[in-house]
């Protein structure tokens, strides 16, 4: 069993039941898959239409086919590659201004703008750039991606900044840095580190959203799939769809895995270089409390729950980690009462689960 908290190690009766259910549902799945395969076979899905991928057709070599798909993928990655850094920069800038600003006149406009940008569909923003501003396709796509994702990145970083221990900011101010500089050189690097998994997950969202370019006729991967299937006839639709969807899923899954991996490393505290949780105790490390014993008092570690495990009493469930857990995991942690909680709770409008 998976070690879920919901059921015990099974006894003999439960084991029998489990086995029966296992067999029944496995058979059901096999039957469904077989039925789908059979109906595909009846409709001649497995005929020579797939040959277009390795033999070419209509005077096109396989190299032409794959070349055009690669160019489509290139344009998808180009849009994402332009939009991601710009969105990160603008989002970071907004987060710094909101945190470091002393007067409301400076901090309120960015707040309102991010709220607006997060509440609008990306496609609407792309249409704004294309129809109203009359921008070229690539830049319309980039515009939509940048506006939305910059707002989300700003929100993620705001959550990260709010999660930092107060002492960081106080220390910065007490050595005479201005509020802006404190935010920029003391708080931001730590916030980025805490929120790295969330930022990487946002990259998946951005990559997925490039496919909206299909609707405004930017010739990215999905549009290339469509053009190819139009050229090679409707029989080839499923062929190109399989290839294209496979590429999308492969790329997005790899990035998701990267986010999960980074998050695990951060949680295990082995996060390599950068900020090691500073010891604030009088001398030497404070001895770790025993199992289920009182957790360390606050201030023991910077941003503790992310950096080290010192603060979490043992009796809490250590959940089964499965790939793609990142989002749920983050939220779960938030509700177990770590300092990121408050900020994450206010983070409900990101809609970053696209």
């Amino acid at each position, binding site marked *: 069993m998976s070690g879920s908290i919901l059921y015990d190690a099974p006894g003999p009766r439960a084991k029998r039941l489990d086995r029966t259910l296992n067999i029944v549902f496995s058979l059901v799945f096999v039957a469904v898959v077989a039925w789908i395969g059979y109906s595909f076979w009846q409709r001649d899905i497995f005929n020579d239409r797939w040959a277009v991928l390795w033999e070419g057709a209509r005077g096109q070599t396989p190299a032409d086919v794959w070349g055009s798909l690669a160019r489509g993928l290139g344009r998808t990655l180009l849009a994402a590659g332009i939009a991601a850094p710009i969105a990160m920069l603008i989002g970071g800038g907004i987060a710094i201004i909101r945190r470091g600003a002393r007067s409301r006149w400076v901090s309120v406009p960015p707040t309102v703008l991010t709220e607006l940008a997060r509440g609008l569909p990306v496609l609407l923003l792309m249409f704004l750039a294309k*129809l109203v501003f009359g921008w070229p396709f690539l830049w319309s796509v980039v515009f939509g991606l940048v506006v939305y994702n910059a707002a989300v990145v700003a929100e993620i970083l705001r959550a990260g900044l709010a999660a930092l221990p107060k002492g960081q900011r106080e220390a910065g101010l007490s050595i005479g840095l201005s509020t802006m500089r404190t935010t920029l050189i003391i708080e931001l690097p730590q916030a980025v580190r805490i929120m790295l998994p969330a930022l990487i997950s946002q990259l998946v969202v951005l990559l997925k959203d490039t496919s909206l370019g299909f609707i405004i006729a930017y010739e990215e991967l999905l549009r290339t799939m469509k053009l190819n299937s139009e050229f090679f006839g409707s029989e080839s639709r499923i062929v190109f*769809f399989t290839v294209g969807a496979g590429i999308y899923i492969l790329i997005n899954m790899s990035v998701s895995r990267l986010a999960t991996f980074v998050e695990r490393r951060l949680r295990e505290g082995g996060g390599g270089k950068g900020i090691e949780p500073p010891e604030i105790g009088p001398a030497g490390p404070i001895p770790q409390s025993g199992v289920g014993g009182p957790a360390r008092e606050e201030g023991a570690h910077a941003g503790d729950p992310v950096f080290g495990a010192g603060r979490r009493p043992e009796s809490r*469930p250590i959940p089964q980690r499965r790939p793609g857990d990142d989002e749920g995991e983050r939220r779960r942690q938030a509700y177990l009462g770590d300092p990121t909680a408050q900020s994450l709770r206010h983070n409900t409008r990101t809609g970053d689960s696209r």
Partner: protein
Amino acid sequence: MGTFIDEFGTIWGAFLATLSLTVVSGALALVWGTLLAVMRVSPVGPLRTFGTGYVELVRNTPLTVMFFFWVFVAPSIGFVPPLGFWIAVIAMTLYTSSFVCEALRSGVNSVGVGQAEAARSIGLTFGQTLSQVVLPQAWRTAIPPLISVLIAHTKNTSVAAGFAYFELVASMQRLTNKHPADGIVIFFGIGLMYLVITIPLGLLAARIERKVAFAR
């Protein structure tokens, strides 16, 4: 501004189209997503595998690709769903349900291990533990993320504009072609209609969260 008022009939119709798509597919996604979540935490191996596989696959597929499948590919393998509203409902439901599932599952995971242990120790079965002890608590934690899923879902309905369904974004396209000079006004008008749906949902989420925070 005048254009916005003159064309309000069109925009209102489009708003209702967006709203009905949001509500119908949202409700279906909640149902299917809950079933998926139950599968993902259930003791039955094949169901868990199916749930995990489904969520992994769908979450990493762009929504546009999902629409593309139902509009262009499904007919060529013999399944011809009615174009427009129902295709949009199918695609949106299948897509959003994976996020609903994850929100619910994170809620289930957030319930303290002691709760489930206590339930088991007084002899409750898996079904009873889930329905009497764990889900009522998981529900509270899951509602805020669920609402944020629904907000994203509302905005995602805009993708249907590219696949023969006339909703808000499609109406923006039409109106901008009709009144090229008033593009900005139309944009803000349409944006406003989205905010009419999303901002109350966001406020609701914040409210519920405050309540939940007190209850804990």
